[in-house]
């Protein structure tokens, strides 16, 4: 069966592709050393030498944004991967098995959900100590409950559909029914949530950096570039342009691609 690529999906693919190119190029080459301090040109305005200007320590904003793409992208992807994979498993089990296990899991889940995500991540970071791994883990745990909720709700409605019962009548085991019939039908809302989560993760990382427990300086992320640009908003507004643009375009790309993926997962979407 052929499926048509919609224009939105194409835009999304191009934007995400661009991000990947920037990340890859960043490994081999950046215009300047992203962490080299040049105290002769603090807050330099955009020019031929510094396309997006230089920050308060004279570091090239473009170079930092390129390196930031790698770090922010990796963190966001890690958070999404961790939260979605764990959330799928736990949500499926809670929704499909049901009974006291479901109730117990939901009590724990709702308790976690009751704390503001950022507070939870902050506490986890304090315990785990600063590192990329613990950052991903902390944010992943903070977002996990909402994923579990969505997966579970989706599973609960699919569980009642008759094809699930038909699978039991055919003699399928629970695990098979869950993986073959329930999981694929439960995916679409999760895909949408996962793409939004990608954006939230980038922003939350910047919030954590701002609070001093995120990615430690001098390593740049889009988030901490934005936060450190904030005090210079009036004198050097260009500092926020590069990271802001990067975040906006990446989120747009990921969301468009997510919508396309959801449509593609829908069997009714035939060209």
């Amino acid at each position, binding site marked *: 069966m052929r499926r048509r690529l919609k224009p939105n999906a194409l835009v999304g693919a191009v934007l995400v592709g661009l991000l990947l190119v920037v990340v890859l190029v960043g490994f081999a080459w950046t215009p300047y050393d992203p962490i080299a301090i040049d105290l002769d040109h603090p807050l330099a305005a955009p020019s031929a030498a510094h396309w997006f200007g230089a920050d308060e320590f004279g570091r090239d904003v473009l170079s930092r944004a390129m390196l930031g793409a790698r770090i922010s992208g990796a963190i966001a992807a890690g958070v999404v991967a961790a939260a979605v994979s764990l959330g799928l498993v736990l949500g499926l089990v809670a929704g499909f098995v049901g009974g006291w296990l479901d109730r117990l899991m939901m009590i724990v889940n709702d308790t976690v959900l009751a704390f503001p995500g950022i507070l939870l991540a902050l506490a986890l970071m304090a315990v785990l100590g600063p590192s990329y791994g613990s950052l991903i883990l902390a944010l992943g745990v903070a977002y996990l409950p909402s994923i579990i909720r969505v997966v579970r709700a989706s599973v609960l409605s699919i569980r009642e559909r*008759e094809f699930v019962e*038909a699978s039991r009548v055919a*003699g*399928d085991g629970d695990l098979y029914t869950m993986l073959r*019939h329930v999981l*694929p039908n439960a995916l679409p809302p999760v895909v949408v949530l996962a793409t939004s989560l990608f954006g939230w993760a980038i922003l939350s990382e910047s919030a954590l950096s701002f609070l001093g427990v995120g990615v430690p300086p001098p390593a740049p992320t889009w988030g901490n570039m934005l936060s450190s640009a904030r005090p210079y908003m009036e004198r050097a507004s260009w500092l926020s342009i590069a990271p802001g643009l990067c975040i906006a375009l990446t989120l747009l790309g990921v969301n468009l691609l997510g919508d396309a993926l959801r449509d593609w997962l829908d069997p009714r979407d035939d060209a």
Partner: protein
Amino acid sequence: MTGPLLSVRNLRVEATAPDAADRPPLLADLSFDVAPGEFVAIVGESGSGKTMAARSILGLLPPGVRRAGGTIALEGRELTGLSQRDLRSVRGRHVGMVFQEPMVSLNPALTIGKQLAEGLKLHEGLPDGEIRRRCLEMLRRVQITDPGRCLAAYPHEFSGGMRQRIMLASVLLLKPKLLIADEPTTALDTLSQREVMELMVELAAQNGVAILLITHDLGLVARYAQRVVVLEKGVEVESGATRQVLGAPAHPYTRRLVDSLPRRAENRPQRPSAAPILEVRQAAIDYPGKPGLFRRGAPKRVVSGVDLTVGAGEIVAVVGASGSGKTTLGRAVLGLKPLAAGTVTFDGMELARMDKTQARAFRRQAQLVFQDPFSSLDPRVRIGETVGAALRHDPAVSPRERRERVRQALEDVSLGGFEDRLPHQMSGGQRQRVAIARAVVSRPRLVVADEPVSALDMTIQLQVLTLFQRLQAQYGFACLFITHDLGVVEQIADRVYVMSAGAVVEEGATDAVFDDPRHAYTRALLAATPSRMAAAVSVA
């Protein structure tokens, strides 16, 4: 005599899509009149355009569809040129509408009182006390007990039949001249269907309201309508007095519709009394109570003390209204619902005592056909895999043989070569045939069929029933046929059990029970079954 109340001339409805011009219109050149106080039915199958016809009268066509021509006059006033604002004053006040789904056509967030008052406030601007008085009066007339409490209650507190009566009350409150009822009882069981229809006809007659009934059910038409318009694929094929049209159909399509009414099998095969394949003894089934904070509420007994036997190769029907426990019983027979008491024995082995191997073998030998062909097939799984699912667990069937058996089963239901289709690429009738193929592929000895044709159009219903009977004769499986439609029972079942409120109230050979029903409930069911009435009309 004065002119017609509603006069529709050359109504044409098309899709707005750019390529719509190449396709036949959804409705072509439909003309009909409704006289004041008359009961007219528009009958047709899905896709016949009958709902489009009803909706264009009030300018309520769904997006993507438009009226491309024709005139619609209400009491001589042309409706097609009216602005939205003027149309709004016609809706409700002059023309009321009752929809199919009583579960969704009342707003669950508002009390009944608020919803009833809405129209009166809007159109009449009456004081609150007067509105309340009229609402109570109207609820009393649609036979809602304790109307005062009803005003303060929310829709979910009422059954489907009661909601449809409340809908009826809210529409009639405004004293319209015309009531358009779009499949008003399709979602209801036989008894509530009769209640709502009788009430509608009675109230309409009292107030001189004309009724335009949109339906697929010839039985309702035969029983209630004075005149009927038959639509096929957007084209009117026949119209006239009901007795005339159904008694002596002139058009082949009408004849096909009439012929597809279920009727008694002429020569029922006499089956020698075989050893029972399924025996249910004193079965009771509970629904778990609502989970509370610390403990569950008391379980609710939905089936109690049921004895039932199905002989090998026999077709046994279980009939009853919704909520009678018949579906639950069907699930319990397959071991899908636990018994609270009693036993189910399959081929001499008690279900609850089977070991793993026996349980697996039982799974292959007892299959289920579901009611809703749109919910019973996984939308993401191809037909071939769906049909072959039961064979995956048979160690004696190699993958190659499985493919062959699936091919054979699909051919049995005249869907040869459909292995790679997805469910959404098929019609409701085709999907139901897939569901039947899935049930027979493992050569079961018992098939539980849960309302397998009630979601289908009349002509498709007959097709699927005939197919089912043919396969049953060919493979000789026993069948527990669960349905609310006595017409269908009469057509295919050897024996019948009548269930009410979780218990069997009557049982016996089908013809004997139908000719001489002993229990009052059976008699009420029989009297309320419209298809039998229609069959009588068409034979006369």
